[in-house]
């Protein structure tokens, strides 16, 4: 948990991108359908049912597979030398440089800084009444949780189970679910921040929100 926030911030400021490397899923002959520097779009639509931009086709045993972008961003480092060549599986083709926006950066910082308490199984979750009451009364970030304290109610098949908190004691910083929603196993439920970092984290996030352009 020892992360230097300043370093993190500096890194994101100088390089607010995430590079996704595109590799061939299997052997085959590759034909590129994009150019260096071209902007591509990821899947769209309400259910992400509209495929993204066509990146390349790979042909194996006369099966022409059209591969589309899974992220939006810019094409960089395209390896035109292998155009029309037979390549092995896992051959890097190019990378998609995805520009991170403010919320994405905040999310990334938070997941690194916070202690994430994730769902033990697929169920509906509620905050315990005590925690909700405290959250209403006090400022959200000020609600502290202790080890072994009952924080959540897991409801499945009309059976409510209390879940006690295990992990780093600290303040409840972020609640990742809506009360009563079905949450998949392993999805984040709560983000807890240790008290010594709390103020600092708040400041950093405030700064990102207000000062950064994008």
């Amino acid at each position, binding site marked *: 948990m020892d992360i230097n926030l300043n370093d993190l911030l500096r890194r994101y400021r100088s390089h607010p991108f995430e590079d996704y490397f595109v590799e061939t899923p299997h052997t085959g002959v590759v034909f590129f359908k994009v150019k260096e520097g071209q902007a591509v779009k990821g899947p769209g*639509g*309400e259910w992400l049912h509209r495929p993204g931009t066509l990146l390349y086709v790979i042909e194996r*045993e*006369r*099966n022409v*597979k059209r591969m589309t972008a899974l992220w939006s961003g810019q094409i960089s480092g395209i390896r035109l030398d292998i155009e029309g060549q037979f390549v092995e599986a896992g051959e890097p083709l190019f990378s998609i440089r995805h520009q991170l926006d403010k919320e994405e950066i905040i999310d990334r910082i938070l997941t690194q800084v916070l202690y994430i308490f994730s769902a033990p199984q697929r169920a509906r979750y509620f905050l315990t009444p005590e925690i909700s009451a405290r959250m209403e009364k006090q400022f959200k970030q000020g609600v502290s949780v202790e080890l072994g304290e009952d924080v959540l109610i897991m409801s499945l098949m009309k059976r409510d189970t209390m879940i006690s908190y295990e992990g780093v004691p600290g303040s409840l910083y972020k609640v990742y679910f809506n009360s009563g929603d079905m949450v998949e196993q392993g999805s984040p439920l709560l983000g807890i921040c240790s008290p010594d970092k709390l103020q600092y984290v708040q400041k950093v996030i405030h700064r990102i929100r207000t000062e950064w352009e994008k």
Partner: protein
Amino acid sequence: MRIDQIHMADSGRLLSQLADRISYLIDIKGNSEYGNIGDLLGQVQRLRQSLFEIKESNLFEEIDRIEDRVSFLEDRVAEKLSPAEIVNIVRSPQRFTLMDILENVYDSYTELGGEGECNIDPAIVVARATISRRVKNKLYSHQVMVIGHEKGQGEEYRNGGCARPWGNNKALKYMRVAETEGIPIHFYIFTPGSYPIEDYPGAAQQIARNLYVMAKLKVPMVSFISEGGSGGAEAIGASGLRLMGSRGYYSVISPEGAAAIEGKIREGEKLPRKLLEHCAAQLKITAEDNLRLGTIDRIIGEPPLGARRDDFPFFRRLRYEMLRATDELVLKTKNFRAFRAYALKRQAEEGKDVPEDFDLFIGWSLTDLERERLLEFRFKKYIELGKGYFIENKNILTQGIRKTKVFASKTYYDIRYGLLRPHHRNVQKVIEEVSGEGSVFLRKVTEPVRAAYDFVFPQPERPSKVIRSGEPERKSIFAEEWDPYVSPLANEDCTVTCPNAAKYGCLDLWVPDLYGEFCGVCPNCGHHFPLEYQWYLENLFDKNSVREFNAHIASCNPLGFQGYSARLQKDIKHTGRNSSIITFEAEVWGIRLVVAMLFSNFRGGTVGVAEGEKFVRACDVASTTRRPLLAYIHSTGGIRIHEGTLGVVQMPKCTFGVREYNDNGGLYIVVYDNNSYAGPVASFLGCSLYQFGIRSSRIGFAGPRVIRETTGQDVPTDYHSAKNALKRGHIQGIWDRREFKKNLYDALMTLGGPNLYYK
């Protein structure tokens, strides 16, 4: 009040009337360029604004001038109305709606199942109403149930008369109420189409259920069509007599929809007006066309430019015609001679003004026998729809042979199942009962003796012997099943990717494997790749058991739709078949059944007149031979739009056929494969009590694009999947293609039960 003030008030009224007339003309023409009507409207608006500034004489002069011009334009427009303009008339906000009819045609009414916005579906209005007539200065009133679409007089929540599935369900509920109370039903159809959503009870399902019930609803039903939009119209349209306003339209698809399909217009692009007008003309949607084709029974005259909301003479005529139509239905069941006299008299009056008095009062209640007759007439009417609009071999000799064959088989099966079978069953029952009782009695006597005997002389237990026949020993159990039929799709040396590869990590499939050994099923995730219909013919039924009938009935181009004949010929040549349906007798492990199979290669498996006729005849064959009926839907794209309303009426026609077959005790099973959409699903397929889907099939009312365009909402990609259809209760199960035969056999055995014909 001074005279000129009255004049002023009058001129205001006159001007607003003129404005209405001009905007009505703009509605009809679809633009304000025709004859400078836009300018004319501007002039009227200016006059209205400066009403008190202009000198009175000048004002009236101006009004007269404009009125002359408007009347002239109206006459010109009325002279030749194009079908597209008729569509505009029907959709004009000034056209009368159901509420106007309820107010003006009926004496009093009580809305049922909700009122206004507080309603399960405001697009469908149901009311108990009284309608009255004068006979020799005495007033008689009748009770009727009025069911219809309300387009809304500017009310958003009416949804433009697009009934949601639960709206049609409400209609059905009150049809049943009318049946219980024994009062006639008057339907008013004002719908551009049904609202294409699958939420329970499901658009297609509900229409199918309505049709199924209407086939045997024991009350006289009359319908009036103003805007008959395909499936939505059928949901409350399968009545004994169908009337239509002379400026209404009745169509298989909206002209916009037809234009989008015909012109291959992409989503979001604007439709060229020319194309739209062309399609409207090709679809033969006007009242005259429909009367000529026999899809409606009578036209009710409207003014040249259509009846509007304050057209009281039209409402009077409508009341008279509705009364008359109901009288006819009732009289027909009572006494044919009386009916004929009545009909002749009415025919002489045709075209004359609406009389003040009726000359006799006809009660609308029916006896049981008359109800039966009513249903008989209705059945006959619908079964005959579209006759003569398909090609049948007219050779007298072959026809004679066919007729003799049909007669012979009918007689044979009537004797076998109608006479001998019940007798045989009764004898068997008696024997069973007697022997059952006898054995109980005997056992009581012999039990102690036998027990004592067994105790004294215990029998040694013998090992059971496996019975072997004379066949060679090492024969594979698949020997008989091993069919050499291999799909031609398997002849390609390449691999394909399963569409679920990203989700389930399916490996690429080698095509000869996939279409050969795997029967087109991904071995990893079970996705079914489409296979040609011949595969089913070969693999689903016992070897050499398929015997096709009625293959000679061929589709033709009854409306003279441009370009359709050529496409039809191309498909006939390409597939070697005359229509998109194959009807045949076949066996599934010894169980003989009649099968109707819609396949995709012929015009996308759409249903036209020939297909409907073949389906009805298949029902008839199944009924005569007492066999179960299977409708296997390889694929269907709906009703064939090129055959217009003749195609639409195949919906009630086939449903009536199925209903008759079911009521005779038949077992009707539907199995959907690949894609099944629209009309057929909303009628003769959806009405089946037992429906199944093959895995990876898609079933629904309208495709995603149509849903997007009508509701403005996108649907998930798996909206129409068989799994979701199962969740909504549309189908009863999902079958794997590889186990189709076994499942079908099981279904026939379990659903059929001992009382089925084939037992």
